[in-house]
């Protein structure tokens, strides 16, 4: 029954990787939006 640990480890690892990637996407979106707003203000 020790093997079940590996199963959960794999599933959790999958979602952690996806979560981290989606998180970086969201962060990059936020930064770009801010930059675009600042550019618009500059005019």
């Amino acid at each position, binding site marked *: 029954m020790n093997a*079940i640990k*590996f*199963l959960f480890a794999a*599933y959790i690892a*999958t979602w952690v990787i996806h979560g981290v990637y*989606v998180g970086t996407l969201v962060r*990059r*979106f936020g930064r770009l939006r801010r930059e*675009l707003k600042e*550019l618009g203000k500059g005019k």
Partner: protein
Amino acid sequence: MKRLFPILSVLTAIFLAYALYLALVKAPTDALQGDVYRIIYYHVPSAWTAFLLFFINFIASVQYLASAKSSRQTAAKWIVIAVGVVGVVVTFLPQVQEQLKSFGMRPSALATTVVLIPVTYFLVGKWFPGERMDVLAVTTAEVGVVFCTIVLVTGPIWARPVWGIWWAPGDIRLTSTLVLWLIYVSYLILRRFSNSAQTQMLAAALAVFGALDVPLVYFSIWFFRTQHPQPVIGGGGSMDPRMLDVLLISWMAFLCFAFLVCWSRFRLELLHREVEQAHAMESLAGAEVRAGVSLPLNRRAQ
């Protein structure tokens, strides 16, 4: 469009939860491996998704290279059609079928892949004209690397309890997946480290080199004995149909998820280029005001 994204996200989340329920509860337990085998419901769909994304990246890169010259574009179009036709005809020759079986590939699977080449080629050309083709290439490469990472992480986690080792060096599918991952990571590094104007051509050329490399990697390791279980579809290995159903549903769920992630990444890249353009325009306008001339060459460091 704005409304569509959250709706699709919710639907995908439900779909993924359903796939998870099927994978953990509904799917029968494997007689030999016990419950650990359920890792394949994440491992195999991730692998298929990654390969599909890399395939799209390759097609988009070829087309981007071809679009540089109109004569080359016509030639590439006919070559792609010829590859599709010849590839399908060849897989039906009995000698070739024998050969393929000795490599562990099913002819029908190969024929489908070959047909996909011209189909994808023309769809990519139709839906992603010009600059968008390059954006598509970035998107698929990056999301493909994420999925490929998951394959490379979940693989050893499965191998440890079943084979007793984390990694089987010299195994054909492990090593070629790893090399594919390395190639695409170097592709992303090239994209980061290059000046914007030339990057796109250089990256497209690298993608073509990578695609040429993969079969060679496969054959270079072909000599070794392979530990990996035969591919589920196209391998000749047999699988409980109930397991196969769950696997396919899981793949569909992951494809929907990959589509959403790709969509976001695509929009991010478009936004990124828009911001870069705005920066360039602003510095141009600023230079004009300061110098009183409309020549970009007069821009001076302040």
